[in-house]
């Protein structure tokens, strides 16, 4: 095995950070709903893909700037998130049952996407896709840079809001002991809907990022589940910054593994990390 050059390693690490920031962005909404609502929302991935296809449709067919589609997608997916939570809340499901219920929802959304857009590859040819910055010896693709910027801004923004706002405090109190929080006047149901709305909006934003950088097929929804779950669990449930950092760590390990070993080794990295973590920190879920 020959060692790759420093430039190749640096380029790999950079692309790892980029893909890791998308893991983090996808994981952020998942982590909030899991940690704060105790809902393991598998449909988060399906919604992200639905948003990605919607962005593709509006941009490719409608000629809209892909980033401008956020104006429609963010409120639409916030509403979708709220609607799903409203339905789930009517059945007061355990986390495991919420996983099963949202798995069903994922299959429905996947079938819907396949029905409308077919199973063919779809790739958004946006104005951003051709652009590349060159910094030092490294290539920096613009779509990935946009994803990174959004992931960082949203993760840190939500982190700050959770710590420093009245709403954030109320959400943390509810996550720790909902009945006692309610006894002090915090409306658990309303806050759950708010979290679900934020989480849905995040799925929409992650979907736009997906459309900017990736070729879409309906079945590739599932390709993201394992690695994003790993990022969420590594980062800590309910944590706003955790998924971003854990996602970046996984992304970089994957990319460097690909560069020094072979691409087929990459998926093993995140799961090895996840299993190691679960073994080293028993009792944590």
């Amino acid at each position, binding site marked *: 095995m020959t060692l790759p050059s420093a430039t190749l390693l640096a380029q790999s690490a950079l692309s790892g950070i980029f893909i890791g920031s998308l893991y983090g962005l996808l994981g952020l909404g998942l982590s909030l709903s899991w940690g704060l609502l105790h809902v393991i929302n598998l449909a988060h991935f399906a919604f992200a893909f639905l948003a990605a296809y919607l962005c593709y449709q509006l941009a490719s067919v409608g000629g809209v700037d892909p980033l401008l589609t956020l104006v429609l997608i963010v409120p639409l997916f916030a509403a979708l998130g709220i609607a799903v939570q409203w339905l789930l809340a009517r059945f007061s499901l355990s986390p495991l049952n919420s996983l099963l219920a949202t798995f069903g929802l994922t299959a429905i959304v996947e079938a819907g996407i396949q029905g409308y857009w077919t199973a063919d590859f779809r790739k958004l040819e946006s104005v951003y896709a051709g652009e590349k910055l060159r910094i030092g010896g490294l290539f920096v693709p613009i779509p990935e840079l946009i994803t990174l910027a959004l992931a960082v801004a949203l993760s840190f923004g939500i982190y700050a809001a959770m710590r420093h706002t*009245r709403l954030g*405090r*109320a959400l*943390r*109190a509810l996550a*720790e*002991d909902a*009945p*006692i*929080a*309610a*006894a*002090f*006047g*915090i*409306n*658990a149901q309303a806050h759950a809907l708010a979290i679900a709305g934020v989480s849905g909006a995040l799925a929409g934003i992650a979907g736009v990022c997906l459309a900017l950088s990736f070729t879409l097929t309906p079945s590739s929804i599932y390709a993201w589940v394992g690695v994003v779950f790993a990022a969420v669990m590594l980062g800590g449930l309910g944590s706003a910054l955790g998924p971003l950092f854990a996602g970046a760590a996984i992304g970089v390990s994957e990319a460097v593994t690909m560069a020094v070993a072979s691409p087929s080794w990459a998926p093993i990295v995140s799961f090895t990390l996840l299993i190691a973590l679960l073994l080293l920190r028993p009792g944590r879920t």
Partner: protein
Amino acid sequence: MLEVRGLCVRYGAAPALWNVSLTIGDGELVSLVGPNGAGKTTLVNAIAGVHKPASGQMTIDGRDLMALPAHRFCESGIALVPEGRRLFARMSVRENLEIGAYRVAARIEREAAIEGVCALFPAVRDKLDHPAASLSGGQQQMVAIGRALMAKPRLLLLDEPSLGLSPLMVHAMFGAIRDVHAAGTAVLLVEQNVAMALDIADRAYLLEEGRIVAKGAASDVRDHPDLRRAYLGATEQ
């Protein structure tokens, strides 16, 4: 101010309270005593909105509580110091206190209220920015009481505030309860420490197996044969 009439509470199918009636007047200090498992926590939690009763009536100043969702009980001036404290462990002491003043009405004066809590419990002042979980049991109990006081309650519900505390700390806790009462707040005090609870109270109720078996002036309940039976029955031959 508080009127509970014919209250029945169940956990699933298992009944915990039967036909319980209890009143608390403005600014009154009422003790609720009874052996373990009698249903004291169940009653207090029902009054705070934490657990929904199966049937009965609860009113505060004539306002119906039974129809309210849990988060609206505190609007009537009810604040709970729950059994086992139940602080938000991962939040700082200050944040715990701020949750106490979550309601808009209490929120406006929250800085002054935090100052008031620190005046009542000086040990809390140095701990404001520490995680609640890092405090000793006694300090956590102070924060739990402080959190409830932040809501500016007219009726304070205290569920076993002396549980697990050192005798010195128990003494301090009762002193603080006396201060709160003296300032005009009505108090419902649940205590295993019956002697102290009856000492401090105007009136008292004795709860046994989900039913009120004695009530009246604290001194009368002290002499009630059921009280002796409830606490000594097993050992007294």
